[in-house]
């Protein structure tokens, strides 16, 4: 266990240096980025190659989630800027086709991104929209009703998620 801690620290040093670069954290995030650090064999740095990378680029921004049973959510995918800035950049690698966070630092950041490979996620300031269609008995007219409610902090189980996207721009 002691060895693991030392390995973590020496690996972190290049990142601590990188955090002082003029390029903003937000720019680095948008690049899907990957900074320096030593790399082990058979790992490659990835930008947006996997579907989950798209969510990664939406961090700390509002996202739109479509769920089963005609529900939609608009909320903020959680991230802590404080954690991000302390550790500079992050390193995401590809292991056999899976986007995989490497190392302790990446685990911390992954945790703050608050979603996992099942698309379980934690959203903040969420607005839930439930759409129901009622058919009038006489006129056979379809009445589309939407119900909205807001929840400050919500865990969503991934098996109900159909799609995740940046927020739709409604005209």
């Amino acid at each position, binding site marked *: 266990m002691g060895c693991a801690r030392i390995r973590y620290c020496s690996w972190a040093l290049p990142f601590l240096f990188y955090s002082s670069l003029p390029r903003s954290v937000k720019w680095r995030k948008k690049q899907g980025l990957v900074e320096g650090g030593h790399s082990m064999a058979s790992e490659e740095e990835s930008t947006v190659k996997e579907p989950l990378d798209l969510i990664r680029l939406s961090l700390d921004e509002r996202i739109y989630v479509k769920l089963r049973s005609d529900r939609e959510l608009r909320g903020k995918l959680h991230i802590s800027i404080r954690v991000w800035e302390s550790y500079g950049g992050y390193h995401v690698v590809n292991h056999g086709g899976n986007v995989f966070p490497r190392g302790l630092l990446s685990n911390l950041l992954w945790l703050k991104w608050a979603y996992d490979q099942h698309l379980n996620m934690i959203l903040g300031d969420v607005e839930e929209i439930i759409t129901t269609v009622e058919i009038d008995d006489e006129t056979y007219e379809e009445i589309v009703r939407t119900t909205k409610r807001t929840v400050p902090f919500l865990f969503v*189980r991934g098996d109900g998620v159909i799609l995740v996207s940046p927020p739709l721009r409604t005209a």
Partner: protein
Amino acid sequence: MLFFSYFKELVGKEVTVELKNDLAIRGTLHSVDQYLNIKLENIKVVDDDKYPHMLSVRNCFIRGSVVRYVELPPDGVDVDILHDATRREARGS
């Protein structure tokens, strides 16, 4: 594993679990497991006129797969607690 650690940090907090059958149960989080099965204590059904089924139930076990949402306390979890949980997990793996 990530949300399992997250929920372990939330044990003792009051949460509202909304199930896929639209039943919403408020209670204190007693425990959670790797499948995100949840045990709640001192439960109260949110709309108990509509769902009188559980008037006499104090504690319950909820299978993880039937959960739609878990509404969490707004103060969430301290970042430092999450750091420790991740560190513990990284050491284990």
